[in-house]
């Protein structure tokens, strides 16, 4: 076994293992992303398609410098953008409030019950997303489960407007993203050092103080991780608003879909998608930096 031939063989094995996957991802992941980036700076053609010229106004239409030749700046796109951010943030907060206490209680169960509870929480993640949303259509629609029940019991006379509202969109997202938030939060809660909590209580801290200054900071990594994992798919979501939302709950995802399948303004759609992706990358970057810094410091309790 001479040195060089062994190294040569390893190189060959490595090429065999990594070659196909690298080629595949370069062509079918790198290629599409590069073309999308280029498209977002091209002018839309008159009848669909693109004009090959540099055109920054796709981003301008959203951010406030529309092409002066064709249109005035219309804040409707900015409004949709802000609404998407607001809905995604609301979904994050609600899933957090729902999952945090549950994670706490489940972490204190016996081993056997604990793993069963975790199994029950992960299971819906594998069930079809569209089916889980469809269920909420049946529950919330005008002749749906909630309205029929309320009317039969005589609580309301007229059916309530539950579906096609912002509330329905938020509820739908909370329902499908619960496992995404629960698992990171649970991982943090599970690792929580209870001796620190007891020490805090022995030293005379109230329950509220202990929570704010010991428990919450120690579980913060899971909270932040879960929040990012829920925020990312909520922001660009188009299925939930398409199924449970109405015209007033149009989100970025629906706007992008319209540009591609109805309005046929592909460059503008590409610019919107780039905007969504930049926000996601920014968030991930902040998160990774935060995590690496945490790794360097001693675990901090204020």
């Amino acid at each position, binding site marked *: 076994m001479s040195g060089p031939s062994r190294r040569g*063989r390893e190189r060959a*094995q*490595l090429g*065999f*293992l*990594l070659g196909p*996957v690298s080629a*595949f*991802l370069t062509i079918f*992941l790198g*290629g*599409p*992303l590069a*073309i*999308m980036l280029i*498209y977002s700076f091209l002018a839309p053609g008159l009848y669909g398609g693109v004009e090959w010229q540099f055109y920054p106004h796709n981003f301008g239409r959203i951010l406030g410098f529309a092409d002066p030749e064709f249109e005035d700046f219309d804040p409707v796109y900015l409004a949709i953008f802000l609404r998407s951010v607001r809905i995604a943030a609301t979904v994050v907060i609600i899933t957090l409030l729902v999952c945090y*206490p*549950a994670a706490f*209680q489940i972490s204190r169960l016996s081993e056997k019950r604990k793993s069963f*509870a975790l199994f*029950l*929480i992960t*299971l*819906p993640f*594998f*069930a*079809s*997303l*569209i*089916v*889980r*949303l*469809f*269920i909420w*259509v*049946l*529950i919330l629609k005008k*002749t*749906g489960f909630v309205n*029929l029940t309320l009317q039969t019991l005589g609580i309301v006379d007229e059916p309530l407007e539950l579906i096609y509202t912002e509330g329905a969109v938020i509820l739908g997202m909370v*329902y499908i993203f*619960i496992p995404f938030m629960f698992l990171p939060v649970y991982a943090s809660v599970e690792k929580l050092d209870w001796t620190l909590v007891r020490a805090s209580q022995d030293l005379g801290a109230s329950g509220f103080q202990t929570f704010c200054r010991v428990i919450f900071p120690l579980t913060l990594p899971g909270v932040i991780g879960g929040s990012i994992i829920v925020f*990312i*798919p909520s*922001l*660009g*979501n188009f*299925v939930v608003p*398409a199924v449970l939302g109405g015209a007033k709950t149009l989100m970025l*995802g629906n706007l*992008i879909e319209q540009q*591609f399948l109805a309005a046929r303004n*592909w460059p503008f*759609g*590409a610019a919107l*998608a780039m905007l*969504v*992706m930049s926000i*996601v990358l920014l968030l*991930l970057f902040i998160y990774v930096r935060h995590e690496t810094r945490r790794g360097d410091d001693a675990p901090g309790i204020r």
Partner: protein
Amino acid sequence: MNFVHKLGSLSLIVYVFIFFAFIYLPIALIVIYSFNADPVNMMRWSGFTIDWYRQIFGFRNASSEAALYIESTDQLLAAVRTSLIVAASTTAVATVLGTAAALAVFRYSFFGKRFYRVLLFVPMLMPDIVLGIALLIFFVGVGISLGVGTIIIGQCTFLISYVFIVVSARLAGMDRTLENASADLGADEWTTFRKITLPQVMPGVVGGALLAFIISMDDLVITYFISGTSTQTLPIFIFGMLRRGIKPEVNAIATMMLLFSFAIAALGLYLNRRKR
């Protein structure tokens, strides 16, 4: 004080029950109402029937005389077939490529290893709509016509990541002493790989493949953009149905899809626990 404490932990226990009820009651509801006989309003209970199940398997019912129902049954079966073809192909490709990538990253040292680790997380973290439209622009720009082929390619770009992560987790937790022992006892690299490494990695590979299969069967957003006008997978069929108007047999389809994915997920989790 003690009383307050007990009340607190009791309310937490009650809360956990509400939490699980929130997750599972809607699912129970759809299963129950898939046996509802009312053909007009699916949520007004008017008797037990298995007609909707008979209908999706192609049997004619008294209520299915309208040609509309038969046509949608044909479309449904075609969608199921497309979904299965796509899921089988993507699972095969993504499992091979993802496992190879995981072996390379965990078993070899080379320049750019960290880059690969990050790169293989990217498709999973990218919002699916962004990936969907990027692929659409790409396929149309390059001139590949949309259909089953583009769906398979498109889904593989992110399914590779899932397989990579599951297999990596397995490799990270693996005991390397057995491989060293095998080498010490004179087995060549290929024999060691085949007889020692592969059987040990296998649960991870099977788990990754099952996950890829489920996610492929369920993918809506990316497939929606790159499927073209004439190809429908099952989720896209249901999505279209929700937009056009719901027919009662959807409940039965939905229930069967839930059972199918729960069965595969339970199998995967079971295998995962047993092999460890």
